[in-house]
């Protein structure tokens, strides 16, 4: 076995998730039929719960264009796309020498992340709002469903 190129390109979590989905990975019971190995499913399960599951190629491209003015390293951009930080304290460990290089612009960067990249499924702020709405809506729809059936 010869290693021709150890690093032929970095992949965001979204790209790996997209690749697995295009081969047929899914959450539901059809997974037994899909040509995906059990170990690949474990990776799929991990990615589907991370920030990558709601992203699309357009989101990533838009983010890449807009964050150019911050002069971030490629690894830092990759990390931000994968983690999708929603507050300055989350971005601090990602960017080296954050205070010196970005300082005040950190709020702008967080806003850029929040507007361009979709929120992951389990982030507390958005989840509370969604749960509140669903809690109110669910009983009426269930009742309506039963009435139409009858």
């Amino acid at each position, binding site marked *: 076995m*010869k*290693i021709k190129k150890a*690093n032929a390109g970095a992949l965001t*979590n979204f790209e790996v998730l997209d690749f697995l989905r295009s081969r047929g990975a899914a959450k539901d019971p059809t997974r037994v039929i899909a040509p995906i190995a059990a170990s*690949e499913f474990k990776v799929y399960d*991990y990615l589907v719960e991370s920030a990558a599951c709601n992203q699309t190629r357009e989101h990533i491209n838009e983010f890449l264009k807009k964050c150019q003015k911050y002069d971030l390293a490629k690894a830092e951009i990759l990390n931000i796309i994968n983690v999708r930080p929603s507050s300055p*304290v989350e971005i601090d460990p990602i960017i080296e020498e954050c205070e010196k290089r970005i300082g005040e612009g950190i709020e702008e960067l967080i806003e850029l992340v929040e507007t361009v990249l979709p929120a992951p499924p389990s982030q507390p702020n958005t989840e509370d709002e969604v749960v509140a709405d669903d809690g109110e809506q669910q009983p009426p729809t269930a009742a309506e469903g039963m009435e139409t059936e009858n």
Partner: protein
Amino acid sequence: MFYLSLIEHTLRLPPQLLGLPLNEAIKGVLESLFLDKVIANLGLCISVYDIRSIDGGFVFPGDGASTYTVEFRLVMFRPFVGEIITAKLKESDSNGLRLTLGFFDDIYIPVHLMPNPSHSEPDPEKKNQVIWMWDYQEQKFPIDGIGEISFQVQSVTYPPIPVEQPKESKPFAPMVIIGSLDYDGLGPVSWW
């Protein structure tokens, strides 16, 4: 977290697979050879991304199988030093924490890389396990098993395969990630 690696390999295609279209047969053999295995300094192989070229197809004398030289790309899991990853707690003992990603279990947070200062308390529920608490401003924050934990990758090592292992020791881990929790924004997501 994930990289593509370009690999060239010479492989034998067992005769019973010759009925399948060539691409599929080769992909199947590559998957059984590389999937879920660690390649030193490249990382854990997740998936075969694509096959670039297939060469050969010679049958050597005395062999029933044909031999191909294949160039292909693999999706490798290899976090870079300084990357932030969220993982779940697997076990915690007096040496530190062990985290899991579902597909990868050997992530260790040693005692000296825990948030400083912190101390451990014996876990009332499970024997041999301790709960680590972070002492910050007179308050104690426990690192419990609920929710995910963010850590920063300190190093990725590939210990050499041991020749003999004493019985009942931990199964050999070909790839070990050492992480750190000692920074703002790291640790259980619920803290921040």
